[in-house]
């Protein structure tokens, strides 16, 4: 079998927890973590007789998300019950939306290796999250399990894509892009590690050019972008191997095993699921008129594409730079805050994409977690412009700002890093260096411009980087020419 003749067909179901103050159907606080079972009440634990009441902000966040994903907002939608038994599901049904979701028929544009593709969004619907099970060891070996219902009733949006994705890289780009949009909208934290963004994939393979879909598997438990990419790559290979061996793909749910780096079948001895959806009689329909949609639209925050254009046109940044800075809401917010504080846009951009981003990557941190404030970065840039510190010194200062969170003035003062721009202080030192290197001086005079660099380097070395390079340059040129 020729593998090049096959392509993968991937659709993603992304669940995001909404960042509301209270849960979807009760007034319990919607907070991550906390001692087990301390954010619960009779409603979110499914006690007898209690009733759900919809949190209006959940509906508004759903509309906002739908608009950002270019969906139609349903004028009439409703909640349904999805019935199944599991200890983390207190009512033994999940309140979800079945045949009349709040949003339908949108799209999201992604870019992979410079190529832009439009990925269809089938639907966006609202539902409640389940609680969490705690096992001793693994689910297979634990003698009992424990149930924490803090998460039960946290509002979720399920965003379902069309099977338009063809490669693991595209899938990753889609989720990254979706995450950026959601972060810009301010509707979710989208933290994969904390589970506030979760992703399941439907994967199949088929001969390239074929319109029919192969048998798909559903992959769960991919808890990072890396896991998503690897799990999909593994699963596609696994399916191709099966076909190559003359076998066929079995429709099933598989889980990504991060330790073993494989997908494993989750098939249990239980019966096939029959969720017995029906309209939840405890909740009334949601009717959304144009006026409501327009009201939400009017309060929509700026989205990544618009922000990118703004950065290009207002500050003359390149398309690439603007793209990187608008990749996350936090990054854009940081940039905008710096510019608002008087920071020069290009310098801010260079620092954010250079040293700042390098340090974040090294530590595996997010910009929002960093101790560097926009005010501190702007102040540091000011000190460079004023000549208080050199660009080289600034790198050291920034590392210290990043590590300690202290302001640049304090660091410079404390470490005596103030730039030496005083000609009288520098001249004797430079003269001595020139005197010690007559051969190089000769070279320079003979037209080897590079020789000047050598002297600058020596001066910087001798001053531990504190010398003002412009001043050093000027003195050097004067001295070398002067002695001619």
């Amino acid at each position: 079998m020729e593998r090049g003749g096959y392509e993968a067909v991937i659709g993603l179901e992304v669940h995001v927890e909404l960042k509301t103050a209270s849960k979807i159907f009760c007034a319990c606080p919607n907070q991550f973590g906390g001692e087990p079972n301390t954010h619960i009440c009779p409603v979110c634990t499914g006690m007898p007789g209690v009733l759900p009441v919809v949190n209006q902000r959940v509906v508004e966040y759903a509309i906002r998300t739908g608009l950002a994903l270019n969906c139609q907002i349903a004028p009439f939608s409703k909640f349904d019950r999805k019935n199944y038994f599991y200890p983390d599901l207190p009512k033994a049904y999940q309140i979800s939306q079945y045949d009349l979701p709040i949003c339908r028929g949108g799209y999201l544009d992604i870019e992979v290796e410079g190529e832009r593709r439009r990925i269809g969004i089938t639907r966006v619907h609202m539902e409640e999250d389940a609680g969490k099970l705690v096992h001793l060891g693994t689910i297979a070996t634990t003698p009992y399990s424990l149930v924490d219902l803090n998460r039960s009733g946290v509002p979720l949006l399920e965003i379902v894509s069309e099977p338009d994705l063809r490669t693991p890289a595209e899938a990753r780009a889609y989720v990254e892009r979706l995450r950026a949009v959601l972060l810009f909208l301010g509707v979710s934290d989208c933290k994969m590690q904390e589970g506030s963004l979760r992703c399941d994939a439907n994967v199949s393979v088929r001969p390239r050019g074929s319109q029919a879909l192969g048998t798909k598997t559903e992959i769960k438990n991919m808890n990072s972008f890396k896991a998503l990419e690897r799990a999909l790559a593994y699963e596609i290979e696994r399916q191709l191997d099966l076909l190559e061996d003359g076998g066929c793909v079995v429709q099933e749910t598989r889980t990504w095993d991060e330790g073993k780096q494989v997908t494993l079948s989750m098939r249990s001895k239980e019966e096939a699921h029959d969720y017995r959806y029906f309209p939840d009689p405890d909740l009334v329909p949601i009717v959304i008129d144009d006026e409501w949609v327009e009201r939400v639209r009017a309060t929509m925050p700026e989205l990544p594409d618009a922000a990118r254009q703004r950065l290009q046109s207002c500050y003359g940044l390149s398309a690439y730079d603007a793209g990187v800075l608008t990749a996350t809401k936090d990054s854009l917010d940081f940039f905008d805050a710096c510019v608002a504080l008087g920071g020069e846009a290009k310098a801010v951009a260079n620092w954010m994409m250079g040293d700042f981003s390098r340090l974040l990557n090294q530590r595996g941190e997010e910009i929002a977690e960093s101790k560097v404030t926009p005010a501190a970065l702007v102040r540091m840039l000011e000190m460079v412009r004023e000549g208080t510190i050199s660009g080289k010194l600034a790198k050291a200062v920034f590392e210290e700002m990043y590590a300690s969170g202290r302001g640049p003035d304090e660091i410079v003062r404390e470490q005596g890093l103030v730039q030496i721009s005083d000609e009288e202080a520098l001249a004797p030192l430079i003269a001595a260096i020139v005197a010690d290197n007559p051969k190089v001086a000769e070279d320079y005079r003979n037209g080897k411009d590079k020789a000047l660099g050598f002297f600058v380097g020596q001066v910087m070395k001798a001053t531990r980087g504190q010398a003002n390079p412009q001043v050093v340059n000027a003195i050097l040129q004067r001295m070398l020419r002067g002695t001619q």
Partner: protein
Amino acid sequence: MTLSRQEVEHVAMLARLKLSEEEKERLSSELGAILDYVERLEALPTAEVEPLAHVLPMHNAFRPDEPRAPFARDEMLANAPQALDGLFKVPRIL
């Protein structure tokens, strides 16, 4: 009509009801009798009739997004058949 034993067992599985042999037998005829009775609905043409889920024309019953203090954990666990360290305890899942 009667429900087949297989159907009764399937439905009992969905409903998480462990039925005795005698219960299965009785239910297959009792449910069959009720479904026979329900069958008279088939005589009524309803293709043009919109299903009625809510008797009153209500919509958009919302709550503002205002958190309130949750219940005390002890109170929420007081009825639990088994609890451990503030969590509900259940027998092994697999």
